[in-house]
């Protein structure tokens, strides 16, 4: 371990999404997401918490580390950044441009890759495991491909160490039948699961401090992206139509009178499930 470690720059991608506690809707001719009841994505809170814990593990705020919350989208999108600043991010970036409307995963990835390049000296990009709205979980992987960075997805633990003049990461990754240890040098991009930590809530001090933190508002021109590469124009996929699924109707409800197990088996036999 080196005596002095250089300051880390961590970019956390955050998104405002429809609150999953309520019914969600697709709107308009282009069937895009209705974001009127939106919050900071629950899954992004784990990424932000991971960033803050890395800062704390390596000397804290005094060591000059910077956590930058990055988002893109219309005026409402900035709320995800504001919430992140209240929780503890040091600064915010909001990419906003009318031409972004209707971006698919690839367009979103191109725009975010341009923002990361624009920031310049980013050591680590952190994201949640998926967005809770698009549910495609394509963006972190596409971002890594565009930035040509090593990537770790679904990290359930994440540690950094500075050694031999470079930052190194060690992460743990679990799937159904295997647990893996993964290593890489920085810069890198890591998506974290909801098992990695317990996100903190903003406190009063944090909420007051956030008011003084800076949010840079950037346009596509600022980050060097041609409007034809994003939005409806740059999309590689198209939603042709969307139908609300008929609500599931309630079936038969019985109260157990000592024979419910057998009646359950009768039901399964009727449905030819045995």
């Amino acid at each position, binding site marked *: 371990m080196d005596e002095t470690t250089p300051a880390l720059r961590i970019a956390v991608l955050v998104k405002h999404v429809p609150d999953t506690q*309520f019914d969600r809707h697709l709107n308009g001719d282009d069937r895009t997401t209705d974001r009127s009841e939106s919050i900071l994505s629950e899954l992004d809170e784990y990424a932000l918490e991971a960033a803050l814990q890395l800062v704390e593990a390596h000397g804290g705020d005094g060591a000059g580390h910077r956590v930058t919350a990055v988002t893109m989208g219309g005026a409402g999108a900035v709320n995800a950044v504001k919430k992140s600043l209240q929780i503890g991010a040091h600064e915010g970036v909001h990419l906003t441009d009318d031409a972004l409307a209707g971006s698919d995963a690839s367009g979103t990835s191109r725009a975010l890759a341009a923002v990361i390049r624009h920031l310049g000296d980013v050591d680590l990009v952190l994201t949640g495991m998926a967005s809770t709205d698009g549910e495609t979980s394509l963006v972190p992987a596409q971002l890594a491909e565009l930035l040509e960075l090593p990537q770790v*997805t679904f990290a359930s633990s994440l540690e950094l160490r500075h050694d031999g003049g470079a930052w190194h990461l060690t992460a743990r990754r679990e799937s159904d039948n295997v647990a893996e240890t993964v290593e890489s040098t920085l810069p890198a991009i890591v998506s974290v699961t909801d098992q990695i930590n317990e996100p903190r809530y903003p406190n009063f001090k944090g909420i007051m401090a956030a008011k003084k933190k800076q949010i840079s508002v950037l346009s596509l021109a600022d980050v060097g992206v041609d409007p034809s590469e994003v939005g409806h124009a740059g999309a590689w996929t198209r939603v042709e139509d969307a*139908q609300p699924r008929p609500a599931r109707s309630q079936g038969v409800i019985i109260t157990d009178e000592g024979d419910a197990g*057998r009646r359950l088996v009768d039901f399964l036999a009727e449905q030819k499930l045995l």
Partner: protein
Amino acid sequence: MAKVLVYIDTPGENLHKTDRELLTLAATLGEPAVALVGELGDQVAAELGAYGVGAVYQPSNAGLDELLVAGKAAFLAAAAEAADAGAVLLGNTFEAKEIAARAGIRLSSGVITDAVAVDESFAVTKAVFAGSYTVNASVTTGRPIITVKANSVEAAAPQGGTAPAVHPVDVAAPAAARITGRSEKAPSGRPSLDEARIVVAGGRGVDGDFGPLEDLADALGGAVGASRAATDAGWIDHSAQIGQTGKTVSPQLYVSAGISGAIQQKAGMQTAKIIVAINKDPDAPVFEIADFGIVGDLTSVLPQATEEIRKRRT
């Protein structure tokens, strides 16, 4: 007829069920071909031939496995170009979706995940917002790359055929993190949640003992799942979690035991064909979507059902 390239990762001795489903689907859309990572055994080669696969593409360099998904994605993109594939099909696991995402960037091609149906023009049907909308979507740029949910098509029985020709594909190793340690978890002997026709899932009401659920799952040949409350309590491995932040399953039968059925849990299971719910609380929201609900104690209902199934089968 355009080639439809199916991505298969480490088939082992026999093809997995989801691989057979993808090959069956590919044959309805064009000429099936395979991009294969891992060993190609004689048995698998014969099976591929029986599904009408004429060409198998394999990486010419070893060691892609330890490069996480980046190396596999680079290979898949190279194979799609070598095959001049009209479309690429993958399974719908987290890893397959990542590989699809990256291959999409490399091929400048649109990616659609979570497909439940794909037609001859590669238009895709999928559910969004946890099954509250059904969406038809299509890829407008490049070779359509589509990840298909398990159980979306019935796997056809393989018939005859000859072993396919093998084509090596050169892949340059991309920037990637390396896997430096790996420990296998003990196999449960049950089908995986992604593939299972039947899922028995438990929540807070299980109160620590998944035994009665495992017994019923085994009697039915199903997999065991759990709500986040149960995995957070440490009663069962996190990989069993179904819901918003876990897996999404669409089995023929979903048995929900001791799960209240809040919206985050519904997100993972409401596209199941038949839902059976057992809960002590008659007001549990899960009953609103259950085809058959039992207000009762799972510790007496489940063992009775398990015993009855075993009795009827003898």
